[in-house]
């Protein structure tokens, strides 16, 4: 994603203003039920309930309270994991240490991969969900672990606990939040003789939104290409120092994570306190953050957390996650309000999320007034559900998941569909795609078809009160029954957050009739109607 600063600079470039002021752009918000749906998908990864939809339909002023409740919903934390993955990209399908290095089976591979990459994401998500100061992500002395991760790494996992829990490493690593997690540094590796410089680039990108890798690595053509020459150049050549004067002092704080063998999983599982001080001597610099000396990795985390750009970057990250696009100069009001809200609330990310979701820029559903081509191309009047969102929506609707060999296929790449359905893989896709391409439509269709059959099979046989969606009909219901049309209307309302017209109900009833005619089976007929709704553009967009 392009840093906002660059965007702002580009926006300041030299075109003269037009003679007559153009009509202002007007952002028309989504109607309250669809806006509730957008908020619920963004903050909980789930559709709103019928009761919630009814509430905002009856009284749109309920929207704020419902949004606030979403921030305290148990699903919110899991949604934050997904949003941070889209920016931090730690959940890849390959690390230098793999499941077989730890004696695990192939069927454990997916859980292994997601445990490793999930560690820093879950730490951040826990800080946000528990409404602690956001700076905690760089300063706390705990991490997040599940039993698998605790069996791989030197982590003191709470006795008798299950699932992801706050836990502590036992290998003497500093208190630096995500900077002290193996998960971050397994993703952002540094070969031995790179001396953590690649990791420093990641720190600058992820926590202060400075992407130094966009700056060219230029070669002094007069300099002999020897290893010693390169290290000397980093310390003495102006063209190198412009970056390395910043990079080297940060890299010096990370030597406790520098392995002596690039491919030793055992080396990578442990922090090495005895190597900490080698950073300054090896790189010939004092550990520092932009010229401010720091005391090791813990000091680095504290220094970053005090840097004003840290809050700016946190707000940008959140805004990009919810707008599903890069932020632009036109988003300045949203960013300023979110930043102010965060600063005024002891760095509460929830406060920033409230400000973002309150903004007309977030809520926009249509444009009017003086709409330029650039406005039309930029303003997120709609977003699409990518793989990880489809996964959570279906799981929430009915407990549906699609797995093979232990892997959740909507959350994996090697044999699954995460990238094929527009999700971020951490390398080639660094933003969730908002273009509904062939493979995205295919995956969305196959998931809808299989999930709809699961739901129809379950619901038509379920005792009263236990149906997921088909709670007003049974296997004997026909289109002549009043409940039949009410059921279709309820499905439409729940899945699309739109009240269907009579014509739409007629069309769906006709679809049911045709499907029943082909199959002579009410389950197949309801599955067809359900699947059509789950593939509806208004379901897949929000």
């Amino acid at each position: 994603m392009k840093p906002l600063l660059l965007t702002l600079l580009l926006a300041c470039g030299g075109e003269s203003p037009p003679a007559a002021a153009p009509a202002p752009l007007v952002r028309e918000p989504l109607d309250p039920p669809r806006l509730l749906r957008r908020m619920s998908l963004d903050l909980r990864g789930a559709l709103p309930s019928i009761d919630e939809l009814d509430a905002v339909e009856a009284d749109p002023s309920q929207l704020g309270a419902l949004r606030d409740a979403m921030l305290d919903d148990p699903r919110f934390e899991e949604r934050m994991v997904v949003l941070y993955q889209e920016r931090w990209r730690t959940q890849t399908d390959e690390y230098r240490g793999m499941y077989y290095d730890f004696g695990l089976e192939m069927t454990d591979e997916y859980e292994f991969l997601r445990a490793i990459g999930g560690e820093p994401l879950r730490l951040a998500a826990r800080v946000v969900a528990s409404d602690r100061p956001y700076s905690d992500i760089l300063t706390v002395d705990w991490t997040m672990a599940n039993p698998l991760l605790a069996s791989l790494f030197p982590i003191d996992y709470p006795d008798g606990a299950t699932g992801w829990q706050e836990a502590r490493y036992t290998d003497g690593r500093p208190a630096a939040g995500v900077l002290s997690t193996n998960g971050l540094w397994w993703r952002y590796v540094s070969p031995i003789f790179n001396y953590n410089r690649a990791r420093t680039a990641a720190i600058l990108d992820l926590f202060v939104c400075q992407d130094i890798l966009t700056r060219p690595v230029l070669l002094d053509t007069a300099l002999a290409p020897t290893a010693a020459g390169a290290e000397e150049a980093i310390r003495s050549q102006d063209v190198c120092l412009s970056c390395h004067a910043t990079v080297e002092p940060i890299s010096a704080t990370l030597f406790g994570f520098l392995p002596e063998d690039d491919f030793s999983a055992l080396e990578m599982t442990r922090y090495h306190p005895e190597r900490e001080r080698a950073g300054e001597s090896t790189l010939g610099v004092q550990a520092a953050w932009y010229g401010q000396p720091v005391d090791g990795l813990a000091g680095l985390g504290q220094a970053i957390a005090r840097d004003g750009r840290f809050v700016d970057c946190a707000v940008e990250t959140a805004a990009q996650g919810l707008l599903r696009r890069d932020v632009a100069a036109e988003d300045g009001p949203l960013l300023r309000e979110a930043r102010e809200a965060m600063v005024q609330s002891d760095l509460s990310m929830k406060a920033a999320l409230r400000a973002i979701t309150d903004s007309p820029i977030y809520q926009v559903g249509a444009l009017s007034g003086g709409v330029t081509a650039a406005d039309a191309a930029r303003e997120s009047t709609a977003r699409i559900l990518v793989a990880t969102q489809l996964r959570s929506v279906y799981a929430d609707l009915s407990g549906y998941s699609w797995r093979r060999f232990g892997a959740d296929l909507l959350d994996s790449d090697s044999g699954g569909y995460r990238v094929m359905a527009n999700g971020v893989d951490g390398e080639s896709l660094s933003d969730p795609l908002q273009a509904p391409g062939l493979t995205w439509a295919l995956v969305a269709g196959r998931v809808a078809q299989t999930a709809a059959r699961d739901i129809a099979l379950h619901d038509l046989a379920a005792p009263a009160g236990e149906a997921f969606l088909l709670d007003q009909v049974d296997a004997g219901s026909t289109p002549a029954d009043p409940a039949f049309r009410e059921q279709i209307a309820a499905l439409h309302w729940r899945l699309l957050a739109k009240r269907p017209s009579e014509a739409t109900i007629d069309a769906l009833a006709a679809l049911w009739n045709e499907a029943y005619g082909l199959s002579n089976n009410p389950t197949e007929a309801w599955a067809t109607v359900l699947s059509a709704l789950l593939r509806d553009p208004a379901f897949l967009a929000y």
Partner: protein
Amino acid sequence: MNRRPLSASRRDLLRLLPAGLGVGLLGGLARPSRAAAEGERRFLFIFADGGWDPAFVFHTAFDSPYVDMPPDGAELAEVGDLRWVSGPTRPNVDAFFTRFGDRAAILNGVEVRSIAHERCRRILLTGSSDPDSTDIPSQIGAASAQRLPLSHVVISGPAFQNATSEGVVRIGQRGQLAGLLSGSCVEGSEPIHTLPSPSLVALEDAYVRARAQSLAQSAQAGVSARIHQGYADALADIEAAAAYQDVLNPSGSDSLSQLLGAVDLLEAGVARCAIVADLGLFNGRWDHHSEITRQTPSFQGLFGNLSTLMERLTTTPGTWGPTLADEITVVVFSEMGRYPSLNQSMGKDHWMTTSMLFLGGGIRGGQVVGAYSETVAGTPLIPETGELDPDGSRGGQVPQPSQVGATLMHLAGMDPAEAFGADTPPLLALLDE
């Protein structure tokens, strides 16, 4: 990037499809005639993942005090103007250049300007370090005169799209696309999933297509309209792609199978660009910070595959050219070079200058364009002629990935200045024109 709307003929074809024909049935659908436009060049990208060492093949630096050449008795080999590094442990390299050297051009001294894998891949494929850049194959694919169902197929290897770029189709690391098209994707799933019968799928498809078209037509111009139109287009593309399930399902996951599968797609005219990764020996990638000699078998394997590929291309009749080798341009590249000298582990670290290999259609073969300086930087050259201009006094430039991108766009019939500006001239010296 906005895609062209469906051509009238495609729309007519789809409209004429029986309403009952759904995805599940399309395996038997007759393929449309070759979709690629007459005279339109297609492109195959082969990506050596990890950073190859040009000194094993391309950089003939036998007299350099700085470059550690392969220790296997490497020596200079020449055929006409083509020069390469020959080694007794890499006979496939010699065999390839001897047989196909007249269709091959080496570009030396390409300045990547980065030494980070992820960023180098992006720079090589997009011509830019901008995280929002879209790769050249995607742009070329989207610019096809006819809208192809699979404009750029990622069989393996990297692809870079910005949030709104369309038309790139990933086959999946294990060929998942074919399973999605055929419905076999549900096999082995946990819990057991089943798909509806083909007739029910067809019924449902027709309903969904009508809904997508309806919303696409009523949406306000902008993001909503783009999403709804994109969805309607994607549903149509699924139908078209389903006719090619056999070529979308390469028989193996090895590099050669993937390469030949890519040729199938390009030959069928269903795709304009494709990319395949070569992961080197034992799929261990080419990133040898220790024991750089492990690149020997990787080059041996790569050039063996290239010979098989060129044999296929040069012996298969083309659609508008004599053979496929005249219609398909092959670009072989890696994201970076290796440090000129060995490190303490007898490996080589990253280096910001590299070499590329171009084969086939539109390429002036039998030549080396560009050069390395004594300190293994790129040497400025005149892009139109390839003449070296070491001091830059005649306006020469060190070859940039953006210029490679401009060159490929030029070959594709696009205006590269629109993407890269007028100060990024194509390397016409590489081209047979």
